[in-house]
C-alpha cells in the first residue's frame, strides 16, 4: 500500500467505526431475547415473528411499497423528460424558471415542501391518501432523477443523436433507439434513487398522508417517539438488509461490467 500512514489507518478505522457501529448495534439487538433493547438476554428471532404478526406494520409496508413503485416510476418518466428538456431543449420561454423549479426541491427543507403540498391538496379539495403521497413523492423525486439523468446526458456525445437523425431517424425514433438505450443505466439508477427516497420519506408523507394511508416511516416514527423497541430493531434490520443487498449487488455487477469492458477494449487494440 502506498503511503498508508498510521494517521490514515486511524482516520479510516475510527471513521468507519463511527459510521457502522450504530447500525451493527441496532442489528445485533434485533436478535435480543429481552424486551429491553439495551440489555442482552440471549439470542432470539421472536421479534421478527411478532413483526410479521403485526397487521398495522404489514399494512404500512404495503402502502409504502405501492407508493414507492408508483411514484418512482412516474418520477423517472417526468425526470427523464425534464433532464432532456434541460440539456437538449435549447431555449424556450421560462427556461430559467423551469431549471429553478428542478433544482429548488433538492435544497428545500422537507417541512416546507410537505406543508405547501398539503395546503395545495386542501385548496383543491383533494382527499388525502395514497394518491396524494404518490403525487408528493413524484414531485420531489423527479428532481433527483432529472439531476442523475442530465449528468449522463451532458457527458453523452451529441453526435450520436445527430448520426441517428442523419441515418433517417425521426427525433422521437432517435431518442428511443439511440439516446434511451445509452442513458438507460442512469435512468435505472434514477429510478432506484427515487424509490429509496420514497421508502425513506417521513416528513413529506406525514403532511400528504390521510388517516387511512400510513406509510412505514410514519408508523416507525410514531412508535419510536415513545422510545426504542426491539420490534423496530427487527424491522430496521430487514430494511437495512434489503438495501445493503441491493447496493452491494449493483456495485458488484457494475464493477464486473467495467472490468469486462476494459478487457475487451484491450483486446481490440491488439
Amino acid at each position: 500500500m502506498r503511503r498508508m500512514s498510521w494517521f490514515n489507518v486511524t482516520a479510516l478505522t475510527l471513521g468507519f467505526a463511527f459510521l457502522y457501529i450504530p447500525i451493527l448495534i441496532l442489528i445485533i439487538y434485533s436478535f435480543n431475547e429481552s424486551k429491553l433493547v439495551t440489555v442482552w438476554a440471549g439470542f432470539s428471532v421472536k421479534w421478527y415473528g411478532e413483526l410479521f404478526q403485526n397487521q398495522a406494520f404489514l399494512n404500512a409496508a404495503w402502502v409504502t411499497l405501492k407508493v414507492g413503485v408508483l411514484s418512482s416510476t412516474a418520477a423517472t418518466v417526468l425526470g427523464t423528460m425534464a433532464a432532456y428538456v434541460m440539456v437538449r431543449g435549447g431555449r424556450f420561454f421560462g427556461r430559467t424558471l423551469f431549471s429553478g423549479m428542478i433544482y429548488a426541491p433538492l435544497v428545500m427543507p422537507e417541512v416546507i415542501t410537505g406543508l405547501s403540498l398539503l395546503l395545495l391538496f386542501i385548496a383543491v379539495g383533494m382527499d388525502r391518501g395514497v394518491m396524494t403521497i404518490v403525487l408528493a413523492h413524484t414531485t420531489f423525486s423527479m428532481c433527483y432523477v432529472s439531476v442523475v439523468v442530465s449528468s449522463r446526458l451532458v457527458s453523452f456525445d451529441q453526435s450520436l443523436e445527430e448520426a441517428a437523425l442523419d441515418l433517417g431517424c425521426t427525433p422521437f425514433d432517435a431518442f428511443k433507439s439511440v439516446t434511451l438505450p445509452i442513458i438507460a443505466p442512469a435512468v435505472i439508477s434514477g429510478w432506484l434513487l427515487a424509490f429509496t427516497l420514497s421508502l425513506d420519506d417521513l416528513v413529506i408523507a406525514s403532511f400528504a398522508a390521510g388517516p387511512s394511508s400510513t406509510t412505514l416511516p410514519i408508523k416507525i416514527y410514531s412508535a419510536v417517539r415513545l422510545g426504542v423497541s426491539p420490534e423496530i430493531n427487527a424491522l430496521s434490520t430487514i430494511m437495512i438488509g434489503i438495501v445493503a443487498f441491493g447496493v452491494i449487488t449493483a456495485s458488484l455487477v457494475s464493477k464486473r461490467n467495467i472490468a469486462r469492458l476494459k478487457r475487451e477494449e484491450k483486446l481490440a487494440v491488439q
Partner: protein
Amino acid sequence: MNIRRLFLISIPYLWLLALFLVPFLIVMKISLSDLAIAIPPYTPTLSLSDGWQGIKGFWAALDIENYIFLTEDNLYWKAYLSSFKIALVSTALTLLVGYPIAYGMANASPEWRPTLMMLVILPFWTSFLIRVYAWMGILSKQGFLNQFLLWSGIIDDPLVILNTNTAVYIGIVYTYVPFMILPIYATLEKMDASLIEAAIDLGCSRLKAFWLVTIPLSKSGIIAGCFLVFIPALGEFVIPSLLGGSRTLMIGKVLWEEFFSNRDWPVASAVAVILLLLLVIPIILFQRNEQKQREAEQ
C-alpha cells in the same frame, strides 16, 4: 416550435408549476391570511363566485400580521437563531469528522478506493429514520454509550445525552457526514501527490505541507461539503424531534408543531416563508462556489 417539443417541455413544466410553484404561492398567500376557526382554518378564502368584489375583498383582507407576530414573539426569534447555531456548529463538527476520513480514503491504495467509496455511500441508501433511531439506543440513560463509559470507569454517574442539543449534534454529524466526505474526497483524489513531495522538498514539514498545500487545494470541496450539510441541517426536523429535548429549538420542529399541534396554518406558513428566505443566501453562495469550480475545471 413543433408539437412534439412543446409536449415534451410542457409536461414536466406544468407538473412542477402545479405541484411546486402553485403550492408555494398558496403558502405565501396563507401566511398573509388570518387564523380562523373553520375548515380550512384560515381566512379569507378566495371565492370566485362573488366576482370582482370577492377578489377585491380577498386582497384587502391580506396583511403581514403573522410576520409581525413572528418578530414580536421571542419563541420564533430564538428558534431561528438556535437553528442557525445548531446548523453552524454541527457543520463544523462534520467537517472535523469528515475531513480525516476523506483524506484517508484519498491516500488509500487505488484498488481499495471504490470499496471505501461504497462504504461511505451505503449508509446514505439506508433509511434516514433508522439511522437516527439507532442513536436513541446508544445515547439514552441506560444506553450503550453510558454502559460502556460506566464499565470502563471513566464516569460514575450516567451522562444525560439523549434529548439534549449534544445528541442533535451527534445525529446531524452522523447522518450528514457522507455529504461532507464525498466532495472533499473528490478534490483530494484529483490532487497530484507530487505537490506534497515538492513542498517537503522545498523545506516544509509534513504538517506544514498539509496546511499550506493540501488544505488550500481542497478548499472548493470543503466549501461544497459545508453547504451540503448546512442547508439541510437548518430545516431539519427528524433529528431534533427524536434526539433533541423539549428545549431544543429548531425551526423545522417549530413549524411542524405550529401546524399539527396548534393548527395555526397562517403562522406556520409565515415561518416557512422566512425559513426559505434564510436559506436563499447559503444556496446562492453554494451555487457560486459550484460555478467557480466548474469554470476552474474548464
